[in-house]
């Protein structure tokens, strides 16, 4: 078989059973792989009102037909579950090299279900699969457990998926790693894995991925890699990491300052990629087969954290426990906080976002040191943040409230309704460091209805509105003109978001890195179709490629609908639609901007054929996508969603 391994691995930790399931041609043609396979499993096997920590819940690891091949950046893995943070559909996407290794071991997907009686890890050695004792690993940071497992198994070259202590403690935004530092950050997959008493999945694969037409594959892969040599985004990302965005974010006013009360700060350059590369960069890193290599390895050289080192940080990892908390004067505090969320195993975005919400509650007198147990949650108080991050991971004191995510914390603390205004969430999930008043109107439209909770940059990653401008004529070729190639315009954004969401979904099925297709546009959809066909020997068309993306997106949306989430919840945090962006620096380009969601949302609904009242996909569109069974599932729920009972429920999370 070309491309795919042709089988998935299902591990039942309750029964201690290992099952290998073949994947038919029809299944692979319909869902391609990776996120597609995962979303299908979650839709079918995890009921919409099941507790995400129930043993019956699933967590899926998806690889694609292109994983482990010579196409650009083929190491990514999607980790999918019912999210403990939102209660709806959730996933994370991580880089690294583990995904390629799983393909070499002979599997396209791994599904974990049940709950082990005590902590275990799974060891996959080609076709040999074992469940091994992990009690000695429980409580360890990923970097420590990684070393222990490699020593125990006698092989330093294996690759390991791992959770940190926060996952073991089922923090609602705990994350999952592979190769120690590469994180599937969002939606709390780490806690689902921890709830199953699973610490790690170690893999060794001695096989290869078979290629149907090696010469064609070589031609297209070579052509694309030559294109990356002079690609403007590659050059910035390689030199400075995703932190290359800091000064751009600051100029265009999407730099998250103090819970998005501001969008720019005069000292932003303290943490820019340029500054990072001159002060704390130890090593540039690359995920599997990547021509960009935007990964960083950081080592703090001076101050009280001298000697601390860790993989990362990304832009989105550094800003939430940095400027979003008012910390910007000493960058070493920011690097140190990123090290903490890595070692404890929590989504930096949600962790920082939850602390930021608490800091604004504190600022506005909604909580005092009485609730925080003496901690003074003042903006920029790096000492308190240093204490608080481990407390959240261990669910200690005030940390136990924050470990629930901002909206649940507000409810558990008995805070008034307006506390939720400052939680800066949609469907219970916060947004990354991309203030939609700056980056941008497309991003913001995507936040309002994104299928892994909402406030999420990776469902569309519609960089046609930012880096798209670097590629002459690209916006026109795809959308019809260049007007959308800037963030603070509504022009073309409904179509842009529709196109990019579909494109991203299929990219996630191949399991290649979206930095090659969004951010950098060196790889376009026709190129992906070319390497997909060269690899698999099949005859996908561009239309089919994009349609599969739409199929997956509509499936994920339908899962949310089954959770009783729809049009009423398609919002963004009110701060962005009501508060004009204040001035932070004199060269800021978006002063006074508010984010005009409603100008775009109803138009977007037309592209998706969603009912304006319920936000549910039409039966017609679902049937067109081969989702007849989904249309059947939704039929009785449309009226239920519109019932007074549902309308009355205050839903911050599900």
């Amino acid at each position, binding site marked *: 078989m070309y491309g795919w391994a042709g089988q998935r691995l299902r591990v039942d930790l309750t029964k201690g059973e290992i099952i290998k399931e073949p994947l038919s041609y029809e299944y692979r043609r319909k869902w391609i792989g990776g996120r597609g396979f995962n979303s299908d499993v979650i839709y079918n096997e995890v009921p919409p009102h099941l507790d995400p920590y129930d043993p019956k819940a699933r967590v899926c690891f998806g690889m694609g037909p292109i994983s482990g091949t010579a196409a650009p950046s083929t190491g990514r893995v999607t980790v999918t579950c019912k999210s403990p943070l939102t209660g709806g559909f959730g996933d994370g996407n991580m880089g690294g090299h583990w995904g390629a290794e799983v393909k070499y071991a002979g599997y396209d997907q791994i599904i974990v279900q049940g709950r082990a009686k005590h902590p275990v890890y799974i060891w996959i050695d080609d076709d040999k699969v074992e469940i091994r004792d992990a009690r000695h690993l429980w409580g360890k940071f990923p970097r420590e457990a990684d070393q222990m497992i490699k020593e125990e198994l006698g092989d330093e070259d294996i690759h390991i998926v791992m959770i940190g202590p926060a996952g073991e403690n089922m923090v609602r935004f705990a994350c999952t790693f592979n190769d120690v530092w590469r994180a599937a950050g969002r939606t709390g997959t780490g806690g689902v894995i921890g709830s199953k008493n699973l610490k790690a999945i170690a893999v060794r694969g001695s096989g290869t991925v078979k290629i149907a037409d090696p010469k064609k594959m070589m031609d297209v892969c070579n052509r694309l890699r030559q294109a990356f040599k002079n690609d403007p985004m590659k050059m910035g990302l390689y030199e400075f990491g995703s932190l290359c965005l800091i000064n751009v974010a600051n100029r265009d006013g999407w730099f998250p300052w103090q819970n998005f009360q501001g969008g720019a700060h005069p000292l932003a350059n303290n943490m820019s990629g340029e500054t990072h590369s001159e002060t704390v960069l130890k090593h540039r890193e690359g995920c599997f087969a990547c021509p960009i290599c935007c990964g960083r390895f950081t080592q703090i050289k001076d101050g009280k954290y001298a000697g601390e080192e860790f993989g990362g940080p990304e832009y989105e990892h550094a800003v939430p426990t940095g400027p979003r908390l008012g910390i910007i004067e000493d960058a070493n505090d920011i690097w140190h906080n990123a090290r903490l969320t890595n070692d404890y195993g929590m989504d930096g975005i949600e962790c920082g976002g939850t602390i930021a919400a608490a800091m604004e509650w504190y600022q506005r007198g909604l909580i005092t040191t009485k609730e925080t147990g003496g901690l003074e949650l003042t903006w920029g108080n790096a000492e308190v943040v240093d204490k608080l991050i481990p407390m959240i991971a261990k669910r200690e004191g005030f940390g136990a409230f924050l470990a629930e995510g901002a909206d649940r914390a507000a409810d558990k603390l008995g805070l008034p309704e307006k506390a939720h205004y400052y939680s800066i969430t949609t469907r219970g999930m916060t947004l990354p460091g991309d203030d939609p008043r700056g980056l941008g109107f497309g991003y913001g439209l995507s936040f309002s209805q994104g299928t892994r909770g909402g406030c999420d940059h990776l469902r569309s990653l519609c960089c046609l509105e930012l880096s798209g401008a670097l590629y002459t*004529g690209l916006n*026109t*070729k*795809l*959308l*019809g*003109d*260049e007007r959308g190639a800037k963030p603070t315009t*509504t*022009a*073309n*954004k*409904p*179509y842009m978001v529709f*196109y990019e969401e*579909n494109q991203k979904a299929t990219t996630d099925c191949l399991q290649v890195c979206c930095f090659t297709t969004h951010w950098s546009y060196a790889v376009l*959809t026709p190129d992906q179709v070319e390497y997909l066909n060269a690899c698999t020997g099949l005859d996908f068309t*561009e*239309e089919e490629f*994009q*349609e599969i993306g*739409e199929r997956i997106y509509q499936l994920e949306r339908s899962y949310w609908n089954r959770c009783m989430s729809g049009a009423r919840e398609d919002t963004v945090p009110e701060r962005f639609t009501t508060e004009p962006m204040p001035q932070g620096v004199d060269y800021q380009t978006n002063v006074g901007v508010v984010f005009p969601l409603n*100008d*775009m949302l109803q*138009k977007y609904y*037309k*592209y998706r054929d969603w009912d304006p009242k319920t936000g549910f996909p039409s039966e017609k569109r679902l049937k*067109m996508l081969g989702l007849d069974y989904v249309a059947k599932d939704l039929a009785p729920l449309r009226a239920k969603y519109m019932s007074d009972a549902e309308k009355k429920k205050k839903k911050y999370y599900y």
Partner: protein
Amino acid sequence: MAIMSKAQAKNFCEMDDKMIDVLNYLLSKGVIDAKTHRRILLEGYASLVNYLQSKKTLNAKQAKEAVKGGFDYLLPVLAR
């Protein structure tokens, strides 16, 4: 025979976001069928230009200009 009036073309040009509106209009006028509507919506603007060229609604030169100039070039051409 023009596919749309000049007024209609001007209307579209002034729209903030117009891909689906243009495609719906072309469908209603029988210029494209439902299958083509679906395909172009998924593939993007260049796909529309290619289709119109394949149906000889645009000649090669016009198609080339349309890919560069976008809707602002294409719609007035369709209104001629």
